[in-house]
């Protein structure tokens, strides 16, 4: 009897056991600790937290370990955990202007109040493999880590937007709660708050490609980086029984504001419009991609012609989530032999018709 995709419980158990062994690798090599992943693979941790929608360094590190370094799988683990958590309270909106800055650059003004600060960036490294890292100990190990920086610097668009040349950030109307994509099913067209939430959890690679497409002429939006800033921001909550906000901790964020040329319309004078990106930790590529795609998805509301994929809300937002995409692509591995049998039966009939027609014609 044929058993290709049947096999049931024993096969699944055996597969899981083998998976656990493969995850561990050669047992004579020391096992990775969560601390090591959190401290030494921090950008992987940041990506898993960002797309997992949960700020928890240790759980993200655990997910990476459990997923054998497969980022989408790790994001899945964190997201599935997140959905089980009770919601105790909404935080107050964070104030990124009050960020304790570690990195802050602007590409539109040479000198900005507070100055440019490179911070820990790959940007000007030469991508040469550093064979010294292959050794056991690092020469810098005895040098203490510099203290987490403490300066705050004003946001570039806040300082330079006064002339009205740069579109002011829109404030939520009083009493209007932002949407919540985890509690409300998506409908189109989608307001910007919901779009930004979707992009924030969206797959970095997908958004990178989408953002890149706008730079190559598919919905060009002439972007400039007004500011990228990375650092720590306080999170506050205001419990109703307290009546005022209290700080409950800090999170590390990367924020990107792009400004883009805008020709103006009937209702809006010509000005720079903005695209916004925000990600946990040092996910700078993600924040920049998100800002490009955010701006490009504003085409309809700004009265621009929607011609390119990156301007199309349904196209971008419905396909940005890597759990959706990965699950559905990989479900093709599941048995489809009933559907395929139906197709076979149909195809045989069509071919019989085809043959009969040709024989009749001869």
């Amino acid at each position: 009897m044929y058993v290709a995709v049947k096999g049931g419980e024993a096969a699944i158990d055996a597969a899981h056991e083998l998976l656990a062994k493969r995850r561990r690798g050669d047992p004579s090599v020391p096992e990775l600790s969560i601390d090591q992943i959190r401290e030494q693979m921090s950008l992987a941790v940041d990506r898993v937290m960002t797309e997992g929608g949960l700020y928890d360094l240790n759980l993200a590190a655990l997910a990476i370990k459990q997923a054998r370094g497969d980022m989408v799988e790790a994001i899945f683990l964190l997201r599935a955990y997140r959905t089980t958590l009770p919601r105790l309270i909404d935080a107050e909106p964070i104030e990124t202007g009050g960020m304790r800055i570690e990195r802050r650059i602007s590409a539109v003004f040479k000198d900005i109040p507070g100055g440019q600060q490179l911070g820990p960036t790959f940007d000007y490294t030469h991508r040469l493999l550093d064979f010294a890292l292959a050794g056991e100990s690092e020469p810098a190990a005895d040098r203490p880590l510099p203290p987490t920086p403490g300066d705050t610097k004003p946001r570039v668009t806040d300082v330079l937007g006064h002339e009205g040349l740069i579109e002011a950030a829109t404030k939520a109307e009083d009493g209007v709660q932002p949407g919540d994509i985890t509690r409300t099913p998506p409908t189109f067209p989608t307001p910007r708050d919901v779009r930004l939430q979707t992009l924030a959890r969206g797959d970095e690679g997908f958004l990178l490609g989408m953002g890149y497409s706008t730079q190559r002429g598919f919905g060009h939006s002439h972007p400039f980086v007004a500011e990228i800033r990375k650092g720590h921001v306080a999170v506050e909550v205001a419990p109703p029984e307290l009546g005022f906000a209290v700080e409950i901790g800090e999170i590390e964020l990367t924020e990107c504001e792009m400004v883009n040329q805008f020709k103006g319309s009937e209702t809006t004078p010509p000005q720079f419009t903005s695209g916004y990106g925000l990600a946990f930790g040092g996910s700078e590529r993600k924040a920049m991609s998100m800002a490009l795609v955010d701006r490009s998805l504003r085409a309809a509301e700004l009265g621009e012609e929607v011609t390119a994929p990156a301007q199309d809300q349904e196209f971008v937002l419905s396909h940005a989530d890597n759990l959706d995409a990965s699950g559905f692509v990989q479900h093709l591995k599941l048995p489809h032999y009933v559907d395929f049998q139906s197709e076979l039966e149909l195809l045989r009939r069509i071919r019989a018709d085809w043959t009969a027609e040709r024989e009749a014609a001869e």
Partner: protein
Amino acid sequence: MNAPVKAEAGYNFAYLDEQTKRMIRRALLKAVAVPGYQVPFAGREMPLPYGWGTGGIQVTASVIGPDDTLKVIDQGADDTTNAVSIRRFFAKTAGVATTTGTAEASIIQTRHRIPETPLKAGQIMVFQVPIPEPLRWLEPRETVTRRMHAEADYGAMHVKLYEDIARMGRITTSYDYPVMVNRRYLMRPSPIPRFDNPKLDRSPALMLFGAGREKRIYALPPHTLVKSLDFEDHPFAIERWTQRCQRCGAPDSFLNEIVVDDRGTRRFVCSDTDYCDGRMA
């Protein structure tokens, strides 16, 4: 039948929290009230991947109780790996009794088949739905298809079927064949073969459809009129085989074609393993 087991500690009954179940039950009630209409719902991430039955799992989790007996099939079979995995999920999180017997089950979650054994009043079928929108291949935009449903504007689907006949001499949709529900909503029956479409019509069982990734729920209450689309001169027809099941000899079941050697020799057996086993017993 496997007796109830102790549910794993640390999870709510059937995994989902009660607020989420309530939200899904509201969507289900609306779906039952408007047969064939796709109700948006705030689908949750599940610990199983999207596209692998998360919609069906959420529906089952929302309707299942401790006294239920659950059957899970994939391609008609109880022992396919994904069916095993989903059945285990509920055994683990809800501790319910499970069965492979169609007649014994109070809830049957399925992917791609409806059992051959006729369903009874009081049973619930839960279908896993990959793409809920019947007009999706004709119109990719949700904004447009929702309007088409609102206006019952289904001409495009009839034109598609007509074009099939004009080009190929017959309708070329072999599974997930579109049906008209209660003379009002066009509906995808999920990727069941055409063979199973007649089982939807006026079924005494409640049929619930869950699409997790697409966040839609729809339903067929018992005894709902379900008509597969066709034309007077090209009536709807199901698959036919020239042979019987080579295992149990059933003349009337959906047969899977199985290649048994390197020379392409084929063997035809029932896709519904419970039905086949029942006839052998």
